[in-house]
């Protein structure tokens, strides 16, 4: 695309790239489906203290796959990732402190 060539400052790569095939998307959706099934399985199978960490890991993996593949972050301008990650990190940090001040973790 010629806009990136005429742009005078190249702070970010342009989003002209090959998008993954439909088959790849379906593959990822399958993976997401399987993880969801595993998540739901924890409701029926007792895995003890590992439960919360396992749930969190599965959640982050799902989140990551949707954001990076379906939302194209892995192919698109890093600027988008910066904005999204800034929002995520800021929200996580601020609200973790918020809950800590309320002594949420000891209340359970």
């Amino acid at each position, binding site marked *: 695309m010629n806009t990136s060539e*005429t742009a005078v400052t190249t702070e*970010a790569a342009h*989003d002209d790239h090959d998008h993954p095939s439909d088959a790849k998307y379906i593959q990822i959706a399958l993976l997401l489906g399987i993880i969801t099934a595993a998540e739901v399985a924890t409701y029926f199978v007792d895995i003890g203290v590992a439960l919360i960490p396992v749930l969190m890991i599965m959640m982050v993996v799902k989140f990551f796959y*949707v*954001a990076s593949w379906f939302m194209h972050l892995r192919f698109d301008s890093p600027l988008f990732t910066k904005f999204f990650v800034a929002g995520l990190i800021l929200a996580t940090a601020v609200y973790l402190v918020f809950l800590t001040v309320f002594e949420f973790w000891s209340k359970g």
Partner: protein
Amino acid sequence: MSEAATTEHPTNTGISHNKLAMWVFLGSECLLFGALISTYLLYRNEFHTGPAPGDIFDIPFTSVSSFVLLMSSLTMVLALSALKRGDIRNNRLWLLTTALLGALFIGGQVYEFTSFVREGLGFTTSPFSSAFFTLTGFHGIHVSLGIVMLMSLLISSLRGNLKEKNSETVEIVGLYWHFVDVVWIFIFTVIYLVPNPTS
């Protein structure tokens, strides 16, 4: 593809105004849902004399509707991918499917809400109930707005105005749609699956 550019003048970053604006907006939305989720977490134990979350959540049911929403993300990327190939027919098909899956999710939420109310969990029953309905309600409103956008795209396509060169519009609506989906991924785990207090 150069005709697809919605701005005639080159931008410093080489990316379009619209897409950048959507991502900035999504960054902002993180703080919105963060506040709602934190409020809920703060009050998950405060069910007063009403039903507790652990008494009332129907995990198998919510799992199915979560799966429905997850799959709507797949159909959304397929819609975009079809349009980028110039495949208008499949684009319409997948847009419609996405909207229908979204509507199915909303239908599930309406059913969930009504059954909760029947079991004695109204909006004003307890701090827990207020926070729960506010959080999931806000998410539901986001999904509903997404459905409106998808239907607008579909109507626009049926009028012959949604062509390959407009694929960025579909992509931007898609970004919003996927974002609403990832928020639900978070809500489903943290609100439903993490063991909930019972009364």
